[in-house]
Structures are given as C-alpha cells and as structure tokens.
C-alpha cells in the first residue's frame, strides 16, 4: 500500500484499511462533506488506498467555494468605498467576483485588511471611530458562532461603526438537497466533525432515517477518515443507517450549547444561494432584525449588482459530487490557482485546488456520469 508510511500511525492505518478491505463486498459511494477532509483524502492518497468498490465523492463543504458570487460582488463594492475598512479572512482575497477580487480592490486603493478572528475586526472598529468597519462573515456552523458573538459584542459595547456582511451556510439542508436529487449516488456520509463540535448530532437522525443513509461524524486527520469510512462501510454492508460518532474526542452529542444559544439569538435561518449550485431552502443564516444596525446589507445600499459566472466553470457540479475536478475541461488549462475561474480552484479547501495541488493531472479526463444540478 503506497504512501501508508506517511500516516501518523502507519500500523493503525494498515489495520483500518485491512478491516475495510475485508468488509466490503459490493460497491459503495460515500460523500465526505468537509473540504478539509477532501484535502486530507487527496493529499494522503486515501482514495487510492481504499478498495476499488469504495468511492469517495467530494461534497460542498468549503465555505469559500459556496459563497455566492452576488455576495462576493457586494463585498467588492463595499470594500471599494473610501470611508470603509473592509476586514476578511485571508482565504477570501483571491476568490473571483465578477471581474475582480479583494486583492485587486486593495491594489486599487481600497482599505482591505486580513484578520485572524472577527474580534480583530471589532477592535479595528474601536480604534477607528471615524471609519466604517465591515467584516465579511462567511462560513459554516463552525465559523458562525464566533461571528455571532462578535456582533453581540458590538451591540453590547455600542460600537456603532461596525457591521457584518453575512453569508453563513448550514450543512443539514445541503445534505437534504443532495439526497433529494434524482441523480444522487451518495449512499453514506462522512459528516464534518467540527461542524458537529458546535451543533452536536441532533439534526442528523431524521436525515439518516428519511434517506436511509448512514451518517458518520468524522474528523479530518487521515486516521479519522479511515475510521469514518470503516464505520460507514460496516453499516452499509449490514443494511443499517444510523448516526455514528467517530470523532468523540471533539464532538459531544449536544455540541456546544452556549454557541448554539448565541446562534439562535443573533441569526435567523434563511434561504441561501450556494455558488454554482443555486438556492437551497433554509440553508443559511442572516442577522436577525434585532441586529439590523450591524447588518452591512442594510447599512450600505448594494442592490442591483449584476453578476456573471464564467461559462466554462463547472464548480456547481463539482460541489455536488456529480463531476470530479479533473473531468472539467478547463481544469489545469484555462483554470489554475493562478488564473482561477471558480472559487473551488482558489480556496485552500476547494476540491479543484486539491486535485491541482496534489498533481492529480495524470487522471484520465473522462466524464463518467451525466451531470444535472441538485436544485
């Protein structure tokens, strides 16, 4: 088994793999939801170590990738205004909007700053009372609680020049949309461990039951992924479909109650467009009306933006597991990390970037399935 020596505990990895090989009797398709897991899988060649019958399909779990173009364009528009200090996590800098990105906005004179934490942006607002400080609040259930707390703090401390451009997304509705698609091939899920650290596992039993699909909460280290696959395959072979926590060291069944309470106070569930995929009902959060003063969408009028996606980019199909990145015609030619057409090539968690970075260029560029959007 090639590369297995790279594993932190090669002996344990071998045992897990042996067990998977011994268990599998039929083909199974599993989706790993989290982009961090995708990178771990490609980087360690886990997909190649698994039996041929076990296929890993990459899911939509990269927050940078799924942030809708319209929101990126709003960010670019707000960041260009002279009175604004625009704060963002670093991995949004090169995500293409219509025609440009935040990196270029800064080159054109916009005051764009990278922060490690949303609280850093709040501090910048305190230090610059005569400027408008806007934080770009994107991400899944792991990032939403920090952002919620920051808005709460802004209100509590009366920091009036701080607002947030919010585009948060939620995993369970995405799983539901994927499973509801007539073309769905997914038979089991490796759920995103850190999302569950916050949210717990309470949202999953209903999904597992309704779609008769095993959902295994999985971390993103190589051994975690092997263990997640092992447990999912076991269930499938036995005809079971339950929720199983393979990441118990970081996931309690109830998640983090304090974080969940704050989410409920600051945000409200809303329909959200996912870049390349389309609108998924109830799949996102926006600031609740109570916090409207800190909502950048209300503070800055950024309506009427016209967005344009590059026609060649098929990231929507990649994000739904209908197409592997190297099956996209632009992959590695028109589209590279240097000249990205889609966010999935930019983000450090994007599936296209993972394939490019780890030189999966040698894969045959054959399209294996008919691809139709989920929603």
């Amino acid at each position, binding site marked *: 088994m090639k590369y297995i020596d790279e594993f932190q505990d090669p002996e344990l990895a071998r045992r897990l793999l042996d067990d998977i090989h011994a268990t599998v009797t039929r083909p199974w398709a599993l989706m790993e939801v989290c982009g961090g897991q995708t990178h771990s899988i490609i980087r360690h060649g886990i997909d190649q170590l698994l039996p041929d019958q076990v296929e890993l399909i990459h899911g939509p779990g990269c927050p940078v990738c799924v942030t809708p173009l319209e929101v990126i364009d709003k960010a670019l528009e707000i960041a260009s205004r002279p009175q604004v200090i625009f704060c963002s996590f670093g991995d949004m800098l090169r995500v293409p909007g219509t025609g440009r990105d935040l990196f270029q906005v800064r080159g054109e004179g916009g005051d764009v700053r990278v922060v490690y934490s949303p609280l850093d942006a709040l501090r910048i607002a305190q230090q610059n009372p005569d400027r408008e400080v806007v934080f770009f609040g994107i*991400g899944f259930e792991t990032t939403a609680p920090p952002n919620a707390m920051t808005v709460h703090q802004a209100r509590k401390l009366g920091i009036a020049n701080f607002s947030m451009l919010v585009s948060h997304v939620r995993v369970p509705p995405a799983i539901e949309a994927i499973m509801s698609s007539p073309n769905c091939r997914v038979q089991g899920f490796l759920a995103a461990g850190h999302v569950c*650290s916050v949210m717990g596992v309470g949202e999953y039993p209903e999904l597992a039951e309704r779609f008769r699909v095993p959902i295994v909460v999985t971390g993103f280290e190589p051994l975690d992924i092997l263990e997640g696959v092992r447990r999912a395959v076991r269930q499938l072979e036995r005809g079971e479909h339950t929720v199983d926590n393979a990441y118990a060291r970081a996931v309690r069944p109830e998640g983090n109650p304090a974080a969940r309470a704050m989410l409920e106070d600051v945000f409200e569930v809303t329909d959200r467009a996912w870049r390349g995929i389309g609108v998924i009902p109830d799949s996102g959060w926006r600031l609740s009306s109570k916090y409207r003063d800190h909502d950048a969408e209300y503070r800055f009028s950024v309506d009427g933006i016209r967005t344009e996606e590059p026609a060649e980019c098929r990231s929507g199909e990649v994000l739904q597991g209908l197409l592997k990145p190297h099956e996209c015609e632009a992959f590695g030619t028109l589209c*590279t990390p240097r000249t990205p057409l889609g966010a999935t090539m930019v983000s450090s968690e994007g599936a296209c970037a993972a394939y490019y970075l780890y030189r999966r260029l040698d894969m045959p560029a054959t399209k294996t399935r008919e691809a139709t959007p989920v929603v």
Partner: protein
Amino acid sequence: MCLAVPGRVLDIEERDGTRMATVDFGGVVKEVCLEYLPDLQVGEYAIVHVGFALQRLDEESARQTLELFAELGLLQEEFGDPWETAAAEAAGSEPVEEVRNQ
C-alpha cells in the same frame, strides 16, 4: 479558514466583560475568546477556530493533531501572511508542493 486548531491555554483574563485567553498553538501564541467554553482552565487544551475556543480536547489528541498540522504545513496556512500568499499566486508562482510519483 475552516480549520480548527488545538491549542493550550497559557493564561486567562477578563476584558470588556469577556473571558479571554492567550493560547499556544505549537509555538504561535494568539488571543482566544473563551465565552463558548467558560470553564476552560489554564493548562487545558481546546479546539480553536477563528479566535474562539469551541470544544475541549484531551492533551494527547491535541498534541498529535498539532504535530500533524505542523508537518503538513497547515499551521503556516492558518497563521502565515495571507497577503504574501495572495501576491505570490497573483504573480504567477504556483503553489509549491512535492510531486508524487505514481
């Protein structure tokens, strides 16, 4: 960005009515908000995401994960200078990564 990194609490203080800690991530020290894990103590480990402690972790798992992240360059990705990375990408240097021979 979605990466959550384990860190060890070095000390804790109250600031603006908020419980804050300095946390060591295998050598990089950052300020972290403890509002979501209010009973976390000095010396304990937690998973930290964008400056917030989200869940407790035992020392052994934390150490292993940190070592692995350091080895994979993920700590650099999380705490390095994103402007440099963005500028390098825009200037045309491809991400450097070892090519694996099949």
